[in-house]
């Protein structure tokens, strides 16, 4: 997207690869929501998706090492369409290829993780993974309820 596109507002947040840094995201989302009139339901979905993505990058992608960065770029394309682009320098990993765990039929069947991937896939309107030469780029898109626009056709499994 052309950085001089008058119809797109951009914001950027850079985090260190520490779980404690994820706490910086909700207040950032609050400010974005106020600035760009993001509906609360959409904001909640954004909050959820970013929590899951960032947690995975920090814990698994970077293996808990705190000396790395994660960059989140927000784009408000107006007309009720919002995008987050999350970039890291972790080993190549596409969360879209991770199968969701089977839906548990009994409380005892729930073990381990996997719910984060399910929540990510169900909460975002579109997700696209691009491998980069030195990391990953994940684009997560949201369409505000009632918007006449649809998210672009991107790969989501």
């Amino acid at each position: 997207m052309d950085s001089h596109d008058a119809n797109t507002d951009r914001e950027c947040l850079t985090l260190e690869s520490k779980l404690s840094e994820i706490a910086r995201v909700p207040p950032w989302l609050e400010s974005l929501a106020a600035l760009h009139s993001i509906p609360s339901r959409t904001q909640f979905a954004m909050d959820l998706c970013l929590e899951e993505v960032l947690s995975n990058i920090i814990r698994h992608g970077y293996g808990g090492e705190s000396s790395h960065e994660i960059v989140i770029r927000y784009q408000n394309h107006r007309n009720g369409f919002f995008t987050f682009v999350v970039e890291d320098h972790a080993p190549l990993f596409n969360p879209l290829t991770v199968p969701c765990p089977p839906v548990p039929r009994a409380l005892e069947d729930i073990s381990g993780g996997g719910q984060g991937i399910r929540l990510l896939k169900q909460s975002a309107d579109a997700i696209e993974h691009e491998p980069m030469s030195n990391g990953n780029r994940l684009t997560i898109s949201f369409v505000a309820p009632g918007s006449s626009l649809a998210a672009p056709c991107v790969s989501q499994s």
Partner: protein
Amino acid sequence: MQISTEELEGGVTRVVLDGRLDIAGSQAIDLKMNVIAGTKKAVLVDMQKVSFIGSMGLRTLVAPAQAIRGRGGKMVLFGPTEMVESVLKSSAIDTLIPIHHDFQGAVAALR
């Protein structure tokens, strides 16, 4: 995330959660939830003031529920907001840990 408990009539323990059940919030209450799971057999988790829940928050609910059930007890969730409940339903937790929006009904389910 803040956690407090209240003993109700009939041996029911009301656990009130206030805040975000995100990674930090879950870590803040995991220990106390585990203690409750190991000592109480009828637990009502009051989620009216839970503003957010992620996958770590789901674990913070599931693990105690499993432990309580393993000891022959019951746990229910009371009053989640619409958006929090949507997360519980997305992960099918609502089919495994009952959700109630009526307080008396939630208490009755534990007796």
